[in-house]
């Protein structure tokens, strides 16, 4: 009985320490598929372009830049600072561009050129960028 209770306790501890599961779609889908399919929430593309123009000349060019970063960048995972929600990231070192998406890769959450380059993406919570 005690052994059984200890096993249950151990299993519970392991489960509560496990990192948030990354949705399978984000693991299985190719970068090309994610770049083609991902969407922005209403109003977010325009607002992100306004806040981070980063040399892009139009909203359309900014959106293309976000998707190109997905296609050519290094894929990694990180967590949102406030909610701990899983995030999928792509960083292209040569052009210093970063695109963030929800953990399932279906919604683009941001796109910008980090001031601190690689150090920024490496320092994101739970970042797997190497």
């Amino acid at each position, binding site marked *: 009985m005690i052994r059984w209770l200890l096993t249950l306790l151990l299993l519970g501890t392991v489960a509560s320490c496990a990192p948030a599961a990354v949705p399978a779609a984000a693991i299985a889908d190719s970068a090309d598929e994610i770049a083609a399919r991902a969407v922005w*929430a*209403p109003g977010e593309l325009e607002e992100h372009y306004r806040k981070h123009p980063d040399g892009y000349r139009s909203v359309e060019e900014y959106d293309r830049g976000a998707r190109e970063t997905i296609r050519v960048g290094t894929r990694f995972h990180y967590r949102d*600072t406030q909610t701990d929600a899983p995030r999928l990231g792509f960083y292209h070192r040569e052009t210093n561009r*970063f695109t963030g998406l929800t953990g399932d890769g279906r919604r683009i959450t941001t796109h910008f050129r980090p001031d601190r380059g690689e150090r920024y993406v490496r320092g994101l919570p739970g970042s797997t960028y190497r």
Partner: protein
Amino acid sequence: MSTERAVVRALLERLLAERGLPDAILFGTQQEGFLLPGVAGGPPIEALSGFALARDGTVYRFWLAWDGRAQRHVLQPFVPLDSLGALAEDPEYLAARRQLQDHL
């Protein structure tokens, strides 16, 4: 909870309360890579975008920003969504809905 995370969370809660939404649920937040002045003379904090789900079900999109004229943090823009679009099936939105229902 890290210090910056706790400071930003308290700031967001205060700014949401000022807009009459003290119990709104945050979801879909994202660090935005540039720094804003700190809170009460503290270290700088990172700008952030995200969404707030109000008790009546309205979703607001917002950015945590700095109003240089007023010398204070603000939620700007702070816009109610007419249509949820891609958010309707978003797991983080659905989780926020469940959290809201648990609180009601």
